[in-house]
């Protein structure tokens, strides 16, 4: 009988019967992130940006006098696990939840946070996230339904292309982007002459470049993750692709430029969040990040950082820790860097949780990302 009692005790302890008590002097803001698996890079960047912001805020006394307490839960890049982890934190009554980054996990978690009426500030970019009528979800970067039209306009007006080829990574990030892109192309009467899917983590792009060359499009839209973009660019240069290569942050980032070792010359595209933006606040953030964590952060780091400051600003605005009021207030709100320097750039939220910000058109010149034009907020 002793054995089974012991067994029972062990099981109970493991299942978290003993729950931690959070003191009234802290506010609980946990993060559900991809810290391992396919999304490890995105999740760890988001986490580090977030941690830096939390330390800064806590050093200045926290939010309304309460220090931020956080927990980091790993989704292992699996939506089922992210749901389980979210359930775990919801059991402990968080104020606001941060993450995940992967759109698949976001879509699953949204159902739970909506039920619990807890705001969730996510890193996902899939259009569907803000199309479900969920009043508790908020983005930290453009949804694909906003970024793709900007790129499409650039292809139509800037490049003046009549035919386009698209290369995309076959996961929910790439597929969502490709679907939105193809829709925008159809709306502008530009023909998609090649539709090439690639695998996450793919190394050999010879076959894909051969297909693109054969298609002979006026422009090629590349929508895959950073490392794959670098490998693709090298193969494209090697086989002598002449058509302009257009992309997003994942094609134009400094990291991609470095990894591509010269093959990124002449690449251009639309950049929503970038550490290379010609904005002093952003550049300063990037340097502090690099000094602390020893690597150059990507756009996910900015997402994590600004998310924490958005929480701080709204909470101070409403003057208390009310999750429901937080969500109501954030809808339709505009936060400028003058109000809260931590948001780095002016940002507006609409009633669906989408955000509107300045963005940039960039080009890679001499191994550096050069901002060629600043695109104003859509709302202006």
């Amino acid at each position: 009988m002793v054995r089974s009692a012991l067994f029972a005790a062990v099981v109970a302890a493991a299942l978290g019967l003993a729950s931690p008590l959070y003191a009234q002097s802290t506010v609980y803001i946990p993060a559900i992130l991809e810290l391992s698996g396919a999304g490890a890079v995105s999740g760890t960047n988001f986490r580090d940006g977030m941690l830096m912001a939390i330390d800064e805020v806590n050093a200045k006394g926290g939010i309304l006098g309460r220090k931020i307490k956080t927990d980091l839960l790993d989704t292992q890049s699996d939506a089922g696990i992210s749901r389980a982890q979210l359930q775990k934190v919801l059991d402990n009554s968080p104020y606001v939840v941060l993450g995940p980054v992967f759109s698949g996990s976001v879509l699953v978690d949204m159902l739970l946070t909506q039920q619990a009426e807890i705001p969730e500030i996510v890193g996902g970019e899939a259009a569907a996230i803000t199309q479900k009528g969920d009043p508790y979800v908020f983005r930290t970067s453009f949804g694909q339904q906003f970024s793709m039209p900007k790129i499409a306009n650039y292809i139509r007006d800037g490049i003046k292309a009549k035919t386009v080829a698209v290369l995309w990574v076959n996961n929910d990030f790439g597929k969502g982007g490709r679907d939105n892109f193809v829709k925008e192309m159809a709306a502008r009467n530009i023909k998609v002459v090649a539709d090439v899917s690639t695998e996450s983590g793919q190394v050999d792009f010879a076959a894909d470049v051969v297909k693109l060359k054969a298609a002979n499009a006026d422009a090629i839209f590349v929508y895959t993750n950073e490392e794959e973009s670098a490998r693709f660019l090298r193969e494209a240069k090697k086989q002598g692709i002449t058509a302009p290569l257009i992309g997003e942050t994942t094609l134009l980032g400094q990291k991609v430029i470095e990894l591509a070792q010269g093959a990124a010359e002449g690449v251009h595209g639309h950049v929503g969040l970038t550490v290379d933006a010609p904005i002093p606040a952003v550049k300063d953030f990037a340097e502090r990040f690099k000094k602390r964590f020893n690597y150059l952060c990507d756009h996910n780091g900015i997402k994590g950082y600004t998310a924490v400051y958005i929480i701080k600003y709204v909470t101070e605005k409403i003057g208390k820790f009310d999750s429901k009021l937080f969500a109501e207030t954030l809808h339709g709100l505009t936060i400028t860097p003058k109000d809260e320097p931590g948001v780095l750039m002016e940002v507006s939220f609409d009633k669906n949780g989408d955000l509107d910000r300045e963005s940039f058109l960039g080009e890679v010149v001499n191994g550096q990302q050069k901002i060629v034009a600043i695109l104003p907020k859509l709302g202006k």
Partner: protein
Amino acid sequence: MIRPATIVLVAAAAIAVVAPFFLKPFGIYLISMWAVLTVAAIGLNLTIGYAGQVSLAQGAFVGIGAYTVALMTQAGWPYPLAFVAAGALCFAVGWILGYPALRVQHHYLAFVTLAFTSLVFLVLRNEEWLTGGTHGINGIARPVFFGWSTGKPLDFYFFSVGTLTVLSGAMWRMLRSPWGRAFVALRENPVRALSLGVDTRRYTLMAFAIGSSLGGLAGALYAPLVQFIEPGSFALGLSFNLLLMVIVGGSGYFFGPFVGALVAVLLPEWTRIAQGYYLLIYAALVMLMMAVCPSGLLGLAARAAKALARRQLPALRAEGAGR
């Protein structure tokens, strides 16, 4: 005299019934997941532990079962029908896969089943018109039986544990039957079984097919539990995880899968305290476990019980002699 094993069994059953009332929703979710994974592990245990065939396809069968239930219930079919369909479909697929595949030696079967799992993943991901593609299927409803909804965590837990009990009871009966004894003969010595006139191929194929259908039934429970499925959840990772459960619990032991699944579900939670290094610790612990008790935890328990019995024997003899 009541055997200690029976005491442990009864106590465990009592805990399984009583514990959830003391747990928060997350804890209940975890043990529901345990029940679901145990069903799949029981199926794999039949294939590996009893029929002696190494299969890495169980993850794919869980996936096929989950998608069957998700698609059918979302199209309006009643859940019990979808549940049975999942099991039947996986039985059929297992039979078709096993027919040519079981002709080859053990290690080759591992690779064939590995290839099968990867192929199933590709189909699930690419055929968007059928499966929803890489975005998966969201908002899967929890079943309702005669007015009793399994929507709440506690209700679903009892539904899944109930299903587990029924299925393991059926498995128990099957293994005690002449059929089941033939399975064990297969594992011990396939050549001798052959020489005794046992149609080894038939039995092995049956074991593989039944094991696969159990995987499908586990999938039928997984879909309404998580309420979201995507191709990535059913790839090689799950197959490896299930294999781990069977081996760590003790392959060939009836309760091996139960113990193995418990370890697999709880261990990541315990090591999560180490914040970020937990997968590393998980892997190291499994390797250590393999070095210390490769016949699994139940194998270790059996050895310990035997050693205990041997020590008690002289005392019993003395007792008997003293009368």
